């Protein structure tokens, strides 16, 4: 195994090499750094990455932990003390997080090393990563296309083998859609499963942190690390966390899966339809029973989403007023001017 080949591996594969002492956590990081420097100019997945800080953490890494020594990239809206957290916005340009999100504390407790901040639509509002105020991110499979969004940086990083796995967030599809567009595994946990403490809020009643990975097994490993109740997030679910890996590789006998007929309507791309049909066949072959179901209110979901998400976003983004953190306009005439100019200069159009 040369350093060059390392970044293409899955988390499970790297873990195996780490535990057999064939590579060290520092070598894993350095191989990733080398590939980031070689290809990210073209992709633009990362807004920042701090090799020195990560190597410091790698020195103490315990490779026998479930994610021991594995670098994980983070969408740039999850706070990690001392790291930037721009949310893809100019308004948080010089911000350094003064505390660490629960999900990251849990990742670290499982041995992972947070490494790299990935690009996103500004404050997670968008579905192409073109609404980042910092830079564009391109789809690694075809640089003329978008990677999806808003977690487009995380999806592109995993697809381009410049991250073994990444965290994103999903409010109205922002993990699932970029994962689909970039050809990686994306998982949106049920609301409440992963603590939102330390996540910069977009629409609080919908936001969830979740993994983007190369394989389903890797996704399960990340969920095992980040899921669980947190006293610091009052909407987090106080329920036991299953071992997400325990059913991997088993058949699906006795499992019934509903297929909503409203999802297969006009306007669905034929390629998507073919892929879904193939998945359904695969699930059936594994023993699952597929039942057509009806979700009659599907047509109203977008309306409900746009009302709730914009209302919650306007409340959540009121905190960016140039008082406690973030950008503040200069030469202000009065209080109205303070708020107005700070926001005009700090926020993008979206």
């Amino acid at each position, binding site marked *: 195994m040369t350093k060059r080949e390392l970044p293409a591996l899955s988390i499970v594969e790297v873990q195996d090499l780490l535990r057999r002492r064939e590579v060290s956590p520092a070598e894993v990081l350095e191989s990733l750094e080398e590939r980031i420097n070689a290809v990210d100019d073209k992709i633009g997945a990362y807004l920042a990455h701090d090799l020195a800080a990560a190597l410091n953490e790698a020195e103490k890494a315990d490779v026998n932990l479930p994610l021991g020594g594995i670098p994980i990239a983070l969408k740039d809206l999850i706070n990690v003390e001392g790291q930037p957290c721009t949310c893809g916005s100019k308004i948080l340009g010089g911000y350094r997080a003064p505390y660490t999100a629960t999900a990251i504390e849990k990742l670290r407790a499982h041995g992972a090393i947070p490494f790299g901040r990935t690009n996103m639509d500004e404050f997670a509002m968008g579905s192409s990563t073109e609404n980042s105020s910092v830079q564009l991110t391109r789809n690694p499979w075809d640089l003329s296309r978008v990677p999806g969004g808003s977690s487009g940086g995380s999806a592109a990083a995993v697809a381009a083998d410049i991250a073994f796995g990444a965290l994103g967030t999903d409010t109205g599809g922002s993990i699932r859609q970029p994962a689909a567009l970039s050809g990686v595994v994306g998982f949106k946990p049920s609301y409440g499963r992963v603590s939102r403490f330390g996540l910069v809020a977009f629409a609080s*009643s919908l936001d969830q942190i979740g993994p983007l990975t190369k394989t389903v097994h890797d996704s399960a490993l990340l969920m095992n690390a980040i899921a669980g109740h947190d006293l610091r997030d009052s*909407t987090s679910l106080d329920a036991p966390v299953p071992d997400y890996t325990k059913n991997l590789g088993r058949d699906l006998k006795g499992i019934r899966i509903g297929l909503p007929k409203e999802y297969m309507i006009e306007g669905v791309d034929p390629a998507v339809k073919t892929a879904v049909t193939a998945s359904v066949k695969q699930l059936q072959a594994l023993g699952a029973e597929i039942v057509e179901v009806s979700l009659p*209110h599907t047509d109203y979901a977008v309306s409900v989403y746009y009302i709730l998400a914009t209302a919650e976003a306007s409340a959540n983004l009121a905190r960016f007023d140039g008082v406690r953190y973030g950008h503040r306009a200069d030469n202000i005439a009065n*209080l109205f001017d303070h708020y107005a100019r700070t926001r005009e200069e700090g926020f993008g159009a979206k």
Partner: protein
Amino acid sequence: MGKLDVGYVAQLARLHLTPEETELFQKQLGDVLLYAEKLNEVNVKGVEPAAHGVPIFNVFREDKASDWFTPAQALSNAPRQANNLFIVTKVVE
């Protein structure tokens, strides 16, 4: 549905808008209001209001002080500060 006063909304949101922006947002906000209108089609008679899919009520913690930010941490990103305080723009004219 009445015409939306974007100028008034902008004032509430503390934003200066150019005439072009006012026109653009007039249309965009109008579209959002159409979403609300679409929901009028749904008959919700007899449907119990549901705030959320996960039933969580009254989350309290023990009424005990615990360590949190030091003043230095809280001020570490302040655009302007002095004497362990945030400096704000004059509020009362």
